[in-house]
């Protein structure tokens, strides 16, 4: 006997697209999961464009390692093997610092400038049901992850491109704490610049800001060697990259470096300040 109650037919089967019930507040969003999705998005984009990542990671440090670590000691006023090792050792920390800074700019600042200035692609992410600050923080964390990847890529290059092997002495506890902090600081700098700079003047600002930041950030020489140029030694202390380079010098080599009692707090301070200002500007860009 068939029942009189209408049996659900295929047509009446639950169809999510026809379901008018909004998910609503009864299904609160887990902010961690949403933030994780933002992070996953950036890493998906990274995975799709490995050539992009490698180009911005490898080219500049390889050239500097080659010219300053190989060519210069080889053709220079012949100071021999010690000079070669010293150059390679100095450059090791400097190049790691440099690529991490690059990621902060190219993985965080440039995309933000583009998305705020022209494409407004960020709009969909900003409409996620989590505080806007978390969208900015997810961007910074994704940039930091890319910075660490870049450091891992450039590390072997710094071993083999220079004429001699650097004097390597890894302090693991320092490396494992300093590297993430340095990557976060550089990425937070990217957030700050990406939200504070006017898209129309961005190339000029990069040239004006980035070039001194990179070359005067103790990437090509240790801070302690600046004694003869005292004013520059003092001025370098306001350059956040100095603390990244010197920190990696401490983590990777036996070379002289700024005290870690200075490096850690200053890096943490820069990170907090840049993150705070960056989030503030970020919010200003999406909420009026």
């Amino acid at each position: 006997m068939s029942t009189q109650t209408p049996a659900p037919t295929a047509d009446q089967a639950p169809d999510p697209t026809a379901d008018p019930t909004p998910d609503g507040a009864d299904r609160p969003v887990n902010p961690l999961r949403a933030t994780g999705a933002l992070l996953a998005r950036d890493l998906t984009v990274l995975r799709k464009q490995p050539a992009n990542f490698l180009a911005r990671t490898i080219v500049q440090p390889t050239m500097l390692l080659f010219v300053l670590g190989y060519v210069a000691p080889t053709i220079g006023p012949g100071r021999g093997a010690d000079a070669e090792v010293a150059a390679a050792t100095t450059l090791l920390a400097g190049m790691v610092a440099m690529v991490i800074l690059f990621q902060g700019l190219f993985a965080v600042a440039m995309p933000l400038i583009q998305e705020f200035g022209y494409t407004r692609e960020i709009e969909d992410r900003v409409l996620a049901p989590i505080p806007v600050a978390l969208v900015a923080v997810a961007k910074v964390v994704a940039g930091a992850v890319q910075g660490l990847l870049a450091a891992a890529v450039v590390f072997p290059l710094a071993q083999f491109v220079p004429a001699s092997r650097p004097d390597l002495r890894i302090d693991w506890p320092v490396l494992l704490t300093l590297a993430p902090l340095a990557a976060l600081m550089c990425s937070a700098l990217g957030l700050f610049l990406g939200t504070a700079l006017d898209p129309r003047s961005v190339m000029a600002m990069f040239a004006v800001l980035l070039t001194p930041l990179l070359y005067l950030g103790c990437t090509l020489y240790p801070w302690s060697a600046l004694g003869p140029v005292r004013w520059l030694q003092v001025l370098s202390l306001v350059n956040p990259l100095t603390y990244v380079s010197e920190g990696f010098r401490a983590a990777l080599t036996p070379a002289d470096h700024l005290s870690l009692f200075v490096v850690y707090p200053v890096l943490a301070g820069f990170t907090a300040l840049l993150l705070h200002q960056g989030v503030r500007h970020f919010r200003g860009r999406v909420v009026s």
Partner: protein
Amino acid sequence: MSSTAQAPPPAPPPASSTGAPAAAGRSGHATPAAVRTVGLTKTYPDGIEAVRDLDLDIRPGEVFALLGPNGAGKSTTVGMLTTSVVPTAGQALVGGVDVAARPAPARRGIGVVPQRNTLDRSLTVRENLVFHGRYFGLRTAEARARADLRLAQVGLDGAAGKAVDALSGGMAQRLMIARAVLHRPAVLFLDEPTTGLDPQSRLAVHEIVRELRAGGQTIVLITHDMLEADQLADRVAIIDHGRLLALGTPAELKRSVDADTVAAVSADTDPASLAAVLRGRVPGLRDLHLLPEAVLLTVQGAEHLFTSIIEAAAQAGITLRDIRIEEPSLQTVFLHLTGKDLRDR
């Protein structure tokens, strides 16, 4: 094209404020509003008062159009309702959540199709939907399942793996709609969804809007296109200069002009002279506006319309070029309320 005429209207008083057609806006229905605004106001730091004292009550399941010319305050209103603009006064609830006080939870119930293409160009068509779902806390598997259903619904299942750059304008718009409803928002905001689309894509978007409505989706449609508002909306709010001028169903609004015929008359003389001739000679004339090339008459009772126009012109020695008769449209209502032609933007 320009403009508006200061035709001294022998017309009824501008349905000032919410007047006649506003009946439908009164509160007192059983279901809670999908969107409710009370005294919503936005004054920008430069002193521009974009939206002033807006009261809206949008019901669950209806398509509600915000109609007005560019610069009327529509975008600011939508910005406030979707948490990207902070009101300077008043309150707005979307899906029962105060958007200014609790923006993050409020966004849970909001879906937005913005005017510009904001698709994520670094992701494929399908990834755009899947990641959107994940931003709203869905598990990846569920986000994928919903993405595939929505892609089929908007006819993009064949383009799932494509880069979004490869999509036509119409396809991109359909994808943005699919994205905006993926997390099943309480209210879907469509900001000028067909502006810049070819006629066929426009029809496709309208079809999707009707399907969503049939599925119970509450939709706020922002448009300056009177025909679109007329075709799609259950109720229409006409706004200009940041204020609500009238609110009602398209039929109610059209009735409010108290006329059943609109005639555009052109002659070999300038519209002002023609208007002077016609004024007082056309029985049932409710309103008269000067257009750049014609005079627009709003008339109640059109039996002797043709003869009266032709006789008046003949007596004045004016040669008529054209008389076009239309039914009152939302265009007529807007003209009636503001003296401005919505088409002249």
